[in-house]
């Protein structure tokens, strides 16, 4: 049984026909071809799939596409203003070598932006580490990810994003 869905992804209206069981991440990757959002587990724990739904971080592997009907979805593809002007969080990840294989990166960046905003641009190391509970990285040992997020918080504030 297919159901029509429509939502806004990275500012653009999109629509499609899905099964009820189609997850948001499947809709993004398979229907829209937006493969920046990754899948790293089947138990909702790794966070590789995190996107923003109506401004909040959500595991796109644990929400049905139909549940996002009418929602505003932002993915890693929608963050940078242009190839030259990345989001301050993306820039901080690059500056601080906070990614190696890049597989966890989309979810990390999306979670990190949500984290900075929820904490009103003020974070300390312990908070960042605790708040990353839902994002696994096997490459970096987290050291540089934590550094990047701490560096991005004031940068996001001054950039007004």
């Amino acid at each position, binding site marked *: 049984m297919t159901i029509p869905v429509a939502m806004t992804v990275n500012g653009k209206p999109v629509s499609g026909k899905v*099964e009820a*069981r189609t997850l948001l991440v499947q809709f993004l*990757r398979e229907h829209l*071809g*937006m*493969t*920046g*959002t*990754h*899948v*790293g*587990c*089947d*138990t909702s*724990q*790794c966070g*590789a799939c995190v996107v923003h739904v109506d401004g909040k971080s959500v595991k796109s592997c644990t929400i049905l596409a139909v549940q996002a009907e009418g929602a505003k979805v932002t*993915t*890693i*593809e929608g*963050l*940078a203003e242009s*190839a030259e002007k*990345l989001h301050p969080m*993306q820039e901080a*990840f*690059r*500056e601080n*070598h906070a*990614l*190696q*294989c*890049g*597989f*966890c*990166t*989309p979810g990390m*960046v999306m979670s990190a932006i949500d984290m900075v905003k929820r904490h009103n641009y003020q974070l300390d*190391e*312990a908070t*960042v*580490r*605790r708040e*990353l*509970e839902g*994002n*696994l*990285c*096997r*490459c*970096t*040992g*987290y*050291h*540089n*990810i*934590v*550094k990047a997020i701490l560096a991005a918080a004031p940068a996001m504030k001054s950039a007004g994003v």
Partner: protein
Amino acid sequence: MTAQTGIGARVKRKEDQRFLTGTGRYVDDLPLARATYAHFLRSPHAHAKIKSIDTSAAAKMPGVVAIFTGKDTADAKVGGLICGWVVKDKHGQPHKAPPHPVMALDTVRYVGDTVAMVVANSHDEAKDAAEAIKVDYEMLPANVDLATALDKGAPQIHAEAPGNLIYDWELGVKADVDAAFAKAAHVTKLDLVNNRLIPNAMEPRAAAAEYDKGTGNYTLWSTSQNPHVLRLILSAFVLGIPEHKLRVIAPDVGGGFGSKIFCYNEETMVTWAASRVGRPIKWTAERSESFQTDAHGRDHVTHAELALDKDGKFLGLKVETIANMGAYLSTFSTAVPTYLYATLLAGQYTTPVIYANVKAALTNTAPVDAYRGAGRPEATFVIESIVSKAAKELKMDPAELRRKNFIPANAFPYQTPVALQYDSGNYPPIIDEAIKIADYKGFEARRAEAKSRGKLRGIGFSSYIEACGLGPSRVIGQLGGGVGQWESAELRFNPTGNVQILTGAHSHGQSHETTFAQVVSDKLGVPIENIEVVHGDTATTPFGMGSYGSRSLAVGGSAIVKAADKIIAKGKKIAAHLMEASVADVVFEGGTFKVAGTDKAVPLGQAVFAAYVPHNYPLEELEPGMDENAFYDPSNFVYPAGTQICEVEVDPDTGEVEIVNFTAVDDFGNIVNPMIVEGQVHGGIVQGVGQALLENAVYDKETGQLVSGSYMDYTMPRADDVPSFKLGNKVTPCPHNPLGVKGCGEAGAIAAPAAVMNAVHDALAPVGVSHVPMPATPLNVWQAIHGARPAAE
């Protein structure tokens, strides 16, 4: 021009742009027109006979395109998967080599073993249909327990390996070691289990294959660390597709840590079935499949004894290990507990005689093979645990005991009693630096302060040696290794002056696209933005061995330097011609050819252009074009070394261990990009900390099920499990490769387990605990404390 981008610079990574903007291309991201999707039906049992498989109902399910079982592959004469390293046992006999069919034929031997492959129009439909396959199993007795695998009466897993023994192997002369022990003033004994780990690269394994009927060519996209080796195995041993008809592409790969070196059932089946189905086939593992079927790591049971004289000098070391192979031999499994383990048992020390006996055993578990460090973490854990234990027993400072036994700087090259010849090193300054950074002197005050808060604080050392960048090929061949250990590189200059580096190494997080470009930028004076690294495609890059064993820069980077030297040599001739000078008078400096003592100069770019537009060119002596390749075979391993110091606090009420300080000082020889090297160390340390405190692959002894089969039960290190790290480094350049570099990819994971566990033991010594099993989970620590002091609570 290249000062900011050359060797030694903290260049920001070239690969980051695509990963940060969601435009990386991993195997599962490929859009393949008319693709079908594969799902594998797996054995729910640890050991059973397959009496029958009925696929008739499944075949009629919606969307099903094809179903294959072991009968189909046997009928088509598909070969079995191979083990590529022949280890000879102590009687000179090759190891037992039981068959490893790509699909189970009549027996399944571990939970997750491949029983059937369903290909359908969608993954969900393939999965729906797999549930409709009826398999009639007859249960067989199973054993998942390594400690009892070689016991008489243990369930027999393969007829070809009586008593489940793959080999009984030794290194060293037992009588010599016994003689040393007879003279010992003190003997320290240690029993340990090196816990089994599941690699868990964040990108699950995936494969996609396409067959072109017109040309008869196959293309396989695979999450591989070494696409050429995968192609070689599939062509020569398994599928018989000629190498030139099979293109293997490993695009962006999301971490490997060893687990993506090997040739697996699924990619084999996807390739084989692509021509039968006539449409592309995609398969991506679900995480639970990764848990069950990626080759696991470690899993040793070991008894070790260290003999010391009255001053604490090591006289000899004896090590007995049983190593788990799992149910089948994976691609390099046999080498890991032998040539990558026992040969490392000298560590940083002058121990004059060493004897190691290793027995490899089969169990009804997933195959075990190389995982970050492969054998070397296991060896380091044995040595560094027993050295710290000896220090405790002798009431000596653990740093002092280590210093006393370090190989002195003037003894290099140093021949160890376990085959390796260390090329270079200088260990005392490393431990001194680590001690300084970690403020070792202030430790007792910190311990006392912690005590006032009810916490037990401890400190642990681990001084590791690593042998990586394997080679030379001749020696590896003598030891039974089935492949060469060289690496290839091609430098392709384009007429407009930009460069492509084609390498046989493969980057799945290691940053080759940046470091290799730095090397070329430095050598040739080309701006880094004009350099592109091409890797991971057998159709575009020269044959290469791929990336594992911290070899990429030491071996692959050396090949690049050789190719760059050829570019310079050719460029010199062209420049000499253009400047009407003798080649002998031409020098190459900062990207420009000059004639000493004159102001004549030809930039490299001009020479390259002349090579492509050879209007004024010595065509009689020189070919046009500027495209040079090189193969580099190392003359020895490289030997990174270092010391880690870990400080922990244990909560005696709950058994929780917190890492409060962690210092690592390494000698990786010359460093091309310190930022990237630090990143490798951070990641390695956390994998080592994971082994020490968190990770444990557990099979249920009764049912044979993998209990730790998801992130619900397998503890992955998270950001709040670890602190930030303090790093230092010392440099003794590698004397035998042109860059003077040693590998850095595995060091963190090699040293950390011992550093952490030594700290835990140090913390718990005051409450009478002498042994905590690894991982030191809250439960294990609490039980150790509880067992030590039953009356205290």
